[in-house]
């Protein structure tokens, strides 16, 4: 069976900095996959390459059996890959529910000009948008401007509005970054639930090792733009190369109270 998402030999240089150097990653359908590595190891760059925000110098991105290398971001999304950003990016001057509808309506094509200007499509998507807001727990704020949400609520909104178009795989860039422990658990719980009940596929970048180890069934370790190890958490945790390289240091830091 072909993997849902796969990259092979991705290289990308910014000036003299080799951000990616042959990075390969495979995400099987229905799994939660993790991507870890020290700062500057190319995790976010790899996300950008996959989602069309950066063009690789070499290598291929495969979605099922389709090469999507170099697709524009809107096309990558239409194919079925949604993503969130490291520092959340919501639409601050739209209301929360309007934020949700951006993704919803971008995916289905209006049948004619009237539908393009009409409101029907909104009501059709609204119910699902509200369900998802309730699912992440911010439905009470639906009519507020998204810019008035707290950072944690923005994280939840970003997770929800990516899901609204029902992408086949969701790429999460540090979903637990900068939020309090309660919220981290809440987010982990939501991801787990979506994965178990719907078989939703995730690929996440995260520095919080507890979060990654508890959630992911496969973890790929990136270092200096190349994948070092890939496997289940237990294997990765004990891999000598990983420990030697940096994970031991990183883990100790992360686990410190």
């Amino acid at each position, binding site marked *: 069976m072909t993997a849902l998402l796969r990259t092979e030999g991705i290289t990308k240089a910014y000036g003299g900095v080799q951000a990616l150097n042959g990075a390969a990653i495979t995400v099987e359908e229905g799994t939660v996959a993790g991507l870890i590595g020290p700062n500057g190891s190319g995790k976010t760059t790899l996300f950008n390459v996959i989602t069309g*925000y950066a063009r690789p110098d070499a290598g291929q991105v495969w979605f099922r059996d389709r090469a999507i290398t170099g697709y524009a971001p809107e096309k990558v999304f239409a194919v*079925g890959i949604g993503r969130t950003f490291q520092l959340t990016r919501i639409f601050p001057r739209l209301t929360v529910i309007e934020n949700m509808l951006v993704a919803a309506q971008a995916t289905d094509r209006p049948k004619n000009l009237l539908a393009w200007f009409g409101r029907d499509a909104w009501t059709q998507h609204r119910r699902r948008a509200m369900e998802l807001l309730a699912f992440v727990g911010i439905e009470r704020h639906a009519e507020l401007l998204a810019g008035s949400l707290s950072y944690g609520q923005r994280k939840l909104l970003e997770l929800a509005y990516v899901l609204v178009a029902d992408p086949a795989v969701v790429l999460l860039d540090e979903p637990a970054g900068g939020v309090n422990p309660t919220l981290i658990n809440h987010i982990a719980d939501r991801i787990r*639930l979506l994965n178990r009940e719907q078989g939703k596929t995730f690929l996440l970048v995260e520095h919080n090792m507890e979060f990654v180890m508890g959630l992911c069934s496969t973890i790929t370790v990136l270092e200096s733009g190349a994948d070092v190890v890939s496997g289940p958490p237990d294997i990765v945790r004990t891999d000598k190369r990983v420990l030697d390289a940096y994970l031991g240091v990183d883990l100790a830091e992360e686990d410190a109270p």
Partner: protein
Amino acid sequence: MSGTRRRETPLVTVGGASKGGGLLALAVAAVLFPLVFSNPGITNYGVLTMIFVTAATGWNIFSGNTGYISLGQAVFYGSGAYAMGIAARDWHVEGTQVFALLPLSGAVGALIAVPFGLVALRVRRHTFIVITLAVFFIFQLMAYNFWFTGGSSGLGSPFLSWPPVSYNRSFYYIALAFAAGSVLIAWLVRRSRFGLQLRAIRDDEDRARGLGVKAMRVKLSAFVISGAITAMIGAVWFYYLNQVEPQTGFNPLFDLTLVLMAFLGGYGSVSGPVLGALLIEPLTLWLNTQPAISGSVSEIVLGAIFLVVVLFLPRGIVPTGGELITKLRTRGRPAVVPATDIGPAAGSAPPSPRPGSSVSSGGAR
């Protein structure tokens, strides 16, 4: 009208009713205006103000929604005027038949907006503004130098043999119709999925693209609509004044005035630019006709207003006023619940909307 939007109903409904009433009163006043004031000197104010209501609304449909500040609307305004003038001259169109050329002017505006937009919309913010200005000057130069534009003396329009009172009144109603039409279009855009995508682009274009918004296509569509409206009202203006010259058709002050109107009223909202035009245009006309002061005083006054608006009312009258009203209604009740309060978590994941949908099946698009 789903239940969720109307949940805090009473206030919203009262607001909606008074809004509707205000709108009706405004419409009645606008229709009665030239009947009450038949003096051509005053109806002249009315005609030019309605022309600017239309132009400012046309600007707002693109720039107000997307946040791409265009200073090149005069490209459409002048081109619309010239298109009507050239067509009337070369095809020997006369009298009221000249009005039949309005759609042609609109089409010319739309046609120009396509290459203009394809070039300018590749860049953002300040660079976009500079490019619109550059295109504007190219068009002014072309109007001066092409063989078919009449050079620096410009073009005259065919003559309309209407007496002054009904002349102004007729043009007032034509301009009013365009103003109403453009406001209707602005309102339709605002509440549509199209408008939502425009405003998403305004807030964060790259993020919007990552959520499937075909940014270039959406921006260009708005630019074309804006260009067509501006070109048509430019043609009305031309036929009203019987004259267009390169420096009046392609007038740099035209764009600055539009931006001032939109900023003063509150750009992005439908009513903001309308309000701005209703305030600014009569003021400008009045200042220009005061014998005691020289012609450039109005420009100084407009500049001063611009400074005051940018410094003290950066979001404009309508949004700021709306916020004040909301504040009064909610009486300082905090709108945001702290982050830790994430609400009762739903027990299970909401079902996928469409199993095997076009999205997840990787539909070829």
